[in-house]
């Protein structure tokens, strides 16, 4: 598989904070989604790969060169996390300004059509809605006809229609043979677009593989059941579980060993009905992998957790 970009033992520190810690990673064609909680190091990774920042140690290589080289920059596109547009220029002027810097840009009409920008071409960026700005920002990233596209949370804050339109455009770009590296907190986005998932936790690559690989590797199952109203949390004290959630008469048990969990429910005569057992989705898998990292701490209990820890 052709490697488009790579990080080799890259560490990036900001003062005493280690944003990335000896990370090694390659980026190939297709869509790679980088997931992880806030502060995990996702945006820092994109900033390093796009040449915006320099690593504290280690090596970053993009399209065979240094990401800071002009020749490399001519082959990449980026939408930063904060929408970056000149507020008083129109959409047309912005796209034309960006396109003028690239050797083989796409035609403005092609980008406009692909992203549905026709209706607000003559509007100034500052007068656009959040969703429209996101689309223009993606257009600005695409118009240089990049081989490698970095998208830092490209659909955050968009309504469903705008998001679908952007997803379609990103999928089209990827299908055209380009490499796309996107960060997102939206698991549906990762599931919909990505052929590869990279999970960042504590500034390190915690998982790297296909969607199924990541979920299977985590090996977490959800046992969901219905119990009579008023059932005491103490009922589940002896049930093997990583975490238990109770909402009304519905109980969700996250477990690494669903057979043992169901066996224990039966043996302990827990009065349940409507039981359902399934492998957890990407969101739960990511939560399990990144537990304790970043701003969204989700504790995964030890083998024999206390009741207070297990019942939330």
């Amino acid at each position: 598989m052709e490697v488009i970009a790579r990080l080799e033992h890259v560490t990036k520190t900001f003062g005493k904070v280690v944003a990335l810690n000896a990370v090694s990673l390659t980026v190939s064609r297709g869509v790679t989604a980088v997931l992880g909680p806030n502060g995990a190091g996702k945006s820092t990774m994109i900033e390093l790969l796009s040449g915006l920042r320099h690593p504290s140690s280690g090596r970053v290589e993009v399209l065979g060169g240094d990401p800071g080289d002009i020749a490399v920059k001519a082959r990449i596109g980026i939408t930063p996390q904060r929408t970056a547009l000149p507020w008083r220029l129109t959409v047309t002027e912005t796209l034309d300004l960006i396109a003028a810097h690239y050797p083989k840009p796409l035609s403005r009409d092609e980008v406009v059509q692909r992203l549905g920008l026709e209706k607000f071409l003559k509007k100034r960026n500052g007068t656009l809605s959040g969703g429209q700005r996101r689309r223009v920002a993606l257009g600005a990233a695409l118009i240089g006809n990049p081989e490698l596209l970095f998208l830092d949370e490209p659909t955050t804050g968009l309504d469903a229609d705008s998001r679908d339109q952007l997803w379609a455009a990103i999928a089209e770009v990827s299908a055209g043979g380009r490499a796309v590296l996107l960060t997102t907190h939206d698991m549906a986005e990762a599931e919909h677009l990505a052929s590869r998932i990279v999970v960042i936790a504590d500034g390190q690559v915690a998982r790297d593989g296909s969607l199924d690989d990541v979920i299977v590797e985590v090996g977490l199952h959800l046992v969901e059941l219905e119990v009579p109203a008023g059932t005491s949390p103490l009922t589940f004290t002896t049930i093997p579980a990583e975490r238990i959630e109770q909402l009304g008469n519905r109980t969700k048990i996250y477990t690494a060993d669903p057979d043992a969990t169901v066996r224990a429910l039966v043996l302990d005569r827990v009065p349940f009905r409507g039981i359902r057992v399934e492998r957890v989705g990407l969101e739960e898998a990511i939560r399990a992998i990144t537990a304790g990292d970043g701003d969204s701490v989700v504790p995964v209990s030890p083998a024999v957790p206390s009741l207070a820890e297990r019942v939330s």
Partner: protein
Amino acid sequence: MRHVLLHARAHLRDTSRMPVYWVPALLFPLVFFGLFGYTNATSLAKIGLGSEYVITPFLLFTTLNVTIVSLSAGVAADRENPWEQRLRVLPLPALSRFAGRLLYVLGFNLVSWIPLLLLAVFTTDLQLPPSQWPIWLGAVLLGAIPFGLLGMAIGYRFPPQGAMTVANILFMLLAFLGGLFVPVKQLPAAIRDVVVFLPTHEYQHLVLAIIGRADRIAAPTWTIGVLVAWTVLFALLARLAFRRDEGVRYG
């Protein structure tokens, strides 16, 4: 060069859509000249001298205001702007973006002079032949380059509010001590010998000398060369401030 022009044009477009910025920039020199310069121009006319002796310092004052104060404030504000970060990933040397910005400021200066020049032409005794206008205004424009570099140095070194304050203090000091408000001979004796080495003094010296009106400036012509030294110094300061900002912001 194409990219320099592109960025200069984008800045001009941006500014032209912000009347709150350019209207005061056009009115300020007009009001200032009306209050402080017009009487001097009339006095000069009485002794047979053209008002270009008075218009020139006001032209420089206007130019310095745009080039030092507005530029530094703009650069400092843009450093906080995500668009600036977006521009950094364009396949373009940083120098081209700077040159584009400098070119824009010089271009904006041309516009800011129009009201003042119209007032001078229609209400004062401007004796400068039309053939000398291009070299007169050209000298004002080229002589502004070191001050543009100073504006960039301040803009990259200080946060927006700080940049505005530092730029205003330097601008007023340089303008006053450089003899743009009052003739140097009216300054205290202790600083009279030093001001000849100030960039603003030699800026005025250059512009008046090029139109043959430097007869009221006591300093020898060679001191105009001081401007070159200041240009190098301000360029180094701008580079240093930019490098420092890169390290802090993107290091």
